[in-house]
């Protein structure tokens, strides 16, 4: 019985992996991608790194002449408090290099944090005061494309090919068959744990929990034995960190908001109140309410608050980017006295692994990232868009070089050619644990490509978590309430 179950589990796992890869690489226009996605593995990524040279200025000069004179207003989702200093430097370098390459383009850029960008951008659009170009989180593209704010824009318009980008990411910038943007970076997170805490709690220090049920058990064991938080749950509303951490759990248990985890989603069925979804929510409830094994501040905090807890040796496990390793190094530099040594112990014991599976062996992670878009002139401050200038910066950012550098520490290049650059080779040597997130990419599931997705992910899902975790509703009621809200939303109404 056990063997049969294991055998079925293995088959299912294999099927799920193949289906996930197929979903990410399946696109009608998939002619000849620059990298062979069917061979995707850390070894394959290492084998192609540093095999091609790219000259960004030359490539973009063909799109917009380097002596072009113009003016560009540009908003972008920039670095925030949880990002490493290394990434800040790359952002500085990018704008300096762009200005040197296009000295006659007057660039007025504005950085906004992930959690503020959508609200501010929506407000600007209402007042016809939007920038000419914008880099948005992956969640936002469909919303603004469906409302008609964006100009059609495909990789070919800036000198690249659609096959140069992850097909799953291209779906996120496509609305009713038209492409409205270009992916700049794509990412999948990984599971991080502190081996020393595992050891002290009587767990195998070198093994990540295999399933989400194990996460619940490990979290309790860590808390009971050491009196610290086990798993870094995040359930703040209107914060990108929440869906990025809960959706892998929801999908792992076999649930979903809609059918977005299926290989060919139709978004026609609400599944937040399915038994599988409720089991996922119950797991969070068990950790927060029953076992009290996660940070109490999970309801008002985000991942940036888990980072110091982890560095202080007060948190056993969390989901995050490989960049968290660099963040820990940055934070450790700021520590003083004995705290510095304590932080070093944590860094030495930092381990990365695959995100756990659900009870049926399903492993999933959010296929995240960002896209870059050009606005229609009627919504732009001044009523004019300098298209050549916009294309110049878009070509630059989505080039193999800069899409890699701007995702250096924590993400992956949107342009697949980035994996072939010398900077990728250098990155593989410098950024620890990159292999793990590379390995997670095939398990990536994009958010539903719907205009309602931001509200679902940023408000309804966190609300569901908060309703269950605060005891305002039971797990069942919270799931049913959230499902009803999604149904109402999809039907065009609801408060």
């Amino acid at each position: 019985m056990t063997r049969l179950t294991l055998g079925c589990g293995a088959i299912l796992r294999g099927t799920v992996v193949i289906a996930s890869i197929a979903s990410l690489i399946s696109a009608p226009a998939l002619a000849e991608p620059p990298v062979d996605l069917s061979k995707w593995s850390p070894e394959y990524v290492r084998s192609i790194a540093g095999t091609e040279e790219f000259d960004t200025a030359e490539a973009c000069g063909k799109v917009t002449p380097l002596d072009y004179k113009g003016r560009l207003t540009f908003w972008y989702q920039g670095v925030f408090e949880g990002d490493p200093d290394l990434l800040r430097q790359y952002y500085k370098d990018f704008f300096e290099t762009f200005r040197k390459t296009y000295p006659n383009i007057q660039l007025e850029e504005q950085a906004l944090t992930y959690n503020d960008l959508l609200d501010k951008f929506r407000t600007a659009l209402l007042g016809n005061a939007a920038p000419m170009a914008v880099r948005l989180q992956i969640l936002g593209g469909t919303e603004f494309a469906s409302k008609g704010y964006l100009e059609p824009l495909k990789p070919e318009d800036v000198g690249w090919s659609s096959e140069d980008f992850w097909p799953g990411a291209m779906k996120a910038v496509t609305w009713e068959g038209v492409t409205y943007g270009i992916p700049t970076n794509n990412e999948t997170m990984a599971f991080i744990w502190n081996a020393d805490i595992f050891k002290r709690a009587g767990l195998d220090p070198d093994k990540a929990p295999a399933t989400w049920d194990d996460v619940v058990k490990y979290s309790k064991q860590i808390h009971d034995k050491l009196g610290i938080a086990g798993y870094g749950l995040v359930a703040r509303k209107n914060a990108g960190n929440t869906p990025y951490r809960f959706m892998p759990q929801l999908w792992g248990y076999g649930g979903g908001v809609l059918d977005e985890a299926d290989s060919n989603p139709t978004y026609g069925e609400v599944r937040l109140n399915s038994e599988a979804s409720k089991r996922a929510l119950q797991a969070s409830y068990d950790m927060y309410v029953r076992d009290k094994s996660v940070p109490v501040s999970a309801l008002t905090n985000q991942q940036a608050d888990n980072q110091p807890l982890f560095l202080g040796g007060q948190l056993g496990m969390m989901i995050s980017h490989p960049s968290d390793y660099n963040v820990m190094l940055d934070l450790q530099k700021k520590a003083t006295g004995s705290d510095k040594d304590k932080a070093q112990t944590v860094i030495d014991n930092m381990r990365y692994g695959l995100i756990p599976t659900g009870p049926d062996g399903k492993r999933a992670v959010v296929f995240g990232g960002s896209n870059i878009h050009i606005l229609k002139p009627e919504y732009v401050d001044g009523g004019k868009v300098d298209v050549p200038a916009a294309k110049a910066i878009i070509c630059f950012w989505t080039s193999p070089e800069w899409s890699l550098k701007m995702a250096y520490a924590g993400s992956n290049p949107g342009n697949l050619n980035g994996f072939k650059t010398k900077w990728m080779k250098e990155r593989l040597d410098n950024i620890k644990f990159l292999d793990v997130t590379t390995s997670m990419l095939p398990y990536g599931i994009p958010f539903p490509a719907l205009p309602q997705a931001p509200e679902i992910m940023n408000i309804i899902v966190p609300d569901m978590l908060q309703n269950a975790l605060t005891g305002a509703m039971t797990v069942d009621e919270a799931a049913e309430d959230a499902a009803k809200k999604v149904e109402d939303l999809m039907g065009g109404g609801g408060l």
Partner: protein
Amino acid sequence: MQGRVVVTIVTGQAEASRSPEPARSGMVRTVWEHRADYAYVLPAIVVMLVVIAYPIYYTADLSFFMTPPGLQLRDKTFVGFDNYSAILTSGVFWKVTWNTLIWTLASTIISFALGFATALALNREFIGRGVMRGILIIPWVISAVAASYIWKWIYHSDFGIIGAILVGLHLTDRPPNFIDSVGTVLPSLIVVNIWREFPFAMIMMMAGLQTVPEQLLRAAKVDGASAWQRFWHVTFPHLRNVSTVTVLLLAVANFNSFIIPWIMTGGGPSNASHIWITHIYELAFGRQRWGVASAYSVLLFFILMTLGYFYVRALSGDKKERGA
């Protein structure tokens, strides 16, 4: 100066005798007589119409339309009073309204009482009074955004200062849960709001206390009035108007509060700290329900106008009392 006034009156009378005006109602006649005054304030009125009246009109207009998140604002559809009925039948509305009432009443009453008590204490002569006054005013001059972040860390459920002190003193095993619990979040935020607002009440009441005639207090003392009797029968009546104005200003400010609850909790957890303004913001900018958010705003506008009416009345009463 007097001569010029006389000339104006004489000219007006002369004009009136030359061309008899048709009979005008009292108000129109008053306006006509003060037409020069109105001409002077016309530019200000135009600016106010553009920046205040038009947004009010637009908000009221928008409150009758549905604006689903998948549509642009210009694609809105007319739904009559549906937004209002949706609001009034929604459970969240009553929860948020209850939160707003608690927030406003508790913040206003306690801030005023604390500010008044502090003003009375500081009205006495003692060494270090100036320094104390300066220290107490600090919460009011600190940026609300900065204060919210500081308090968020003070309250932090895992590594907040209060929790660390209480655990360090072995008064509790775990840090208290201030802002991650539906039961404690609103009172915790109200404490922050009071901390920020009471210096305002203190300043207002200190200014009011300067107007209480010293000789009356001395006379009452000579007549054998106790401290409480002097306060209740002499001091307080003199402060009635400034108290009313202070309470009304605090109430309006609290109804309109946004920064503290939004930064510290975003209205959570589970809507337990959502008040009207934060809820309106989330509806509009987070969920793009512009129509519903506008309907909420219209309702809030009427409530604030009512408070504004009493504020103006209190001010006019004050003027009348002073014989202005």
